[in-house]
């Protein structure tokens, strides 16, 4: 499945959130979307899922404009793991994952054994099967995140959109989620777009990376091209060194503390610049 975004513009009221961003992803590939807070990453994801009408530009799924498709038809092809999937009601994990079957069911249809099998396997793949009867409200953040991925898989999508799937997760769970996503794209041919905050994680797992800044695409390409000290400094406004990963050679970013912001403080001289978080000596 092929999802393309052609230079879309999105507005919230008078605020421009996306100013001509483009992206395309096809089956078996993971595209990472990077950028500072407020650069339009989540907006881009929402537009790709058809939940937001762009003011101009197009989003097409296998060449078909997503605006011409019914939400239910979109949900059979595109699954989203959003942030803050919060409900005050204590649905069981299985009930939540079962909701992923909704776009496949008719108004009066009852879930078949196949629906149940899809749900069970989605829970298995995300390692939440043992939580099936637990209320979602009692789970830890990491467990909940995996349940949300399970629900997305239950939709049997061709495209998987992830909004910061690893934020708030410890390193082990980060790797677990990203390994899972990686496997889904490689073995099952899913097209994956993941909004990520962790540049190094993105570098490890993504085939291509799109950098957003102020709603525009400022860099796009394979991690080796995009993740450079210059783009990191330009996009995030921090000093960085980029080194190859000792195992696989993918670029890894090392932040240089201080560099840009601390030195601006008038009470600090250049020599006094300490690692970020430390106060400079003049500060009392």
């Amino acid at each position, binding site marked *: 499945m092929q999802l393309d975004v052609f230079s879309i513009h999105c507005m919230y009221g008078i605020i421009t959130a996306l100013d001509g961003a483009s992206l395309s992803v096809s089956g078996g590939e993971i595209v990472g979307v990077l950028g500072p807070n407020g650069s339009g990453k989540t907006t881009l994801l929402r537009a790709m899922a058809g939940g937001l009408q762009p003011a101009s530009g197009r989003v097409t799924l296998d060449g078909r404009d997503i605006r011409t498709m019914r939400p239910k038809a979109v949900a059979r092809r595109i699954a989203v793991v959003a942030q803050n999937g919060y409900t005050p009601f204590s649905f069981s994990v299985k009930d939540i994952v079962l909701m992923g079957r909704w776009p496949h069911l008719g108004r009066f249809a009852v879930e078949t054994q196949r629906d149940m099998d899809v749900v069970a396997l989605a829970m298995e793949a995300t390692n939440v*099967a043992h939580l099936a009867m637990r209320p979602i409200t009692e789970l830890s953040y990491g467990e909940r995140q995996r349940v949300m991925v399970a629900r997305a898989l239950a939709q049997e999508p061709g495209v998987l959109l992830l909004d910061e799937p690893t934020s708030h997760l410890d390193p082990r769970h980060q790797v677990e989620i990203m390994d899972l996503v990686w*496997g889904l794209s490689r073995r099952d041919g899913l097209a994956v777009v993941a909004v990520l905050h962790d540049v190094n994680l993105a570098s490890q797992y993504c085939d291509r990376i799109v950098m957003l800044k102020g709603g525009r695409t400022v860099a796009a390409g394979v991690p080796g091209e995009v993740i450079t000290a210059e783009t990191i400094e330009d996009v995030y406004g921090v000093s960085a060194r980029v080194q190859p990963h000792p195992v696989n050679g993918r670029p890894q970013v090392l932040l240089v503390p201080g560099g840009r912001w601390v030195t601006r403080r008038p009470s600090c001289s250049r020599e006094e610049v300490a690692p970020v978080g430390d106060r400079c000596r003049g500060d009392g």
Partner: protein
Amino acid sequence: MRATSRDRNRALRDDVRPDVEPCAGAGAPSGCREGAHPVSRAGRAGSVGAHALRGLATPRPVWREARLPLLALAVALVMVVAAGVGSVSIRPLEVAGILVRRLPLVGGRIVHADWPASHEVILLYVRLPRILLAAMVGASLSVAGAALQGLLRNPLADPYVVGVSAGAGLGATIAMVAGVPVSILGVGSVPILAFVTAVATMVVVYSIARVSGRLPTDTFLLAGVVVGSFLWALISFLLVISGDTLREAMMWLMGSLSNKGYAHVKMAFPYIAAGIAALVVLARDFNLISLGDEEARHLGLDPEEFKRIAILAASLVTAAAVSVGGIIGFVGLVVPHTMRLILGPDHRVLLPACVFAGAGFLVAADTLARVLVAPGEIPVGVITALAGGPFFLYLLRRRKRSGAL
């Protein structure tokens, strides 16, 4: 069973992870083994995953399958018993006999009339319409409450947050104060005017809360509360300047089912039946929307379209119930919560359960309302609050440790 399935799950996991991890770590996709889609595998009969997990997908105790029929049966029993209670006492079996005899075609052949004719008249023309009305109103308020709590993702929501009750109250008060002498098909001006103003209020609240084609949940709640307060002020003003209708109006505003007949049942039934049917059919959509508008949208539900239909249905049901029963409090808040605590939040079970439980609860409460201080009457709204409150608090305390709704 549990232990073995868990072991199998673990075995499966261990089976899956190795072909993912080394590849991902090495960043060398080409070396990866081709494997099956963990989800699409389900389509194949006899695959290991599907087999191992079948047990997990379907274990349900028998009572879980039978809970709705059991609830319906309990409500029917409550109604039969309630019909026998009053100044003239009728045994439950006799009540059942009288009712069965009225069945078309077969009724007369199953049971023979061995009861005084007066019992039949009292039951069919005095108690039964009131019981039917109580059941309808209770079912309406409960199911509307459950629907709005799910829709607004707010456990404090009840059918009255939309402002419909205040709207109905204003219409009823105007009818009583002005003494409008209209009557349509045996129904007085009070329920008719109450229904009209209730629906009008719903339209006003909805239009106020609508912002460029969208209906933000919080705005809707606020608009409902504010419009409601405004209308309550108008009601108070009317009551103060009216004087002599105060007692009658207070009884109505507190909720009462006295002096009602089949005409009221017929008036409210179409709206209540259609509204409840719509809400129950939409049960699965309510599950989705209770995760949030955005999440529902991602699962393929158009949240705005859904909210429009759901709010219309819930408000219509509430308007019809309030116009014949007055503003009976607590039912729409406590019954949904109680059912959610007992049966869980799945609206496919919750909404029908609220229909039955709400009906049974209000029939029981109304029976107490008419017999406790007989020949006087207590407003049934007082009973619902007195009886429902402590029971709900007990449930809440018991479930408090789980910290969830």
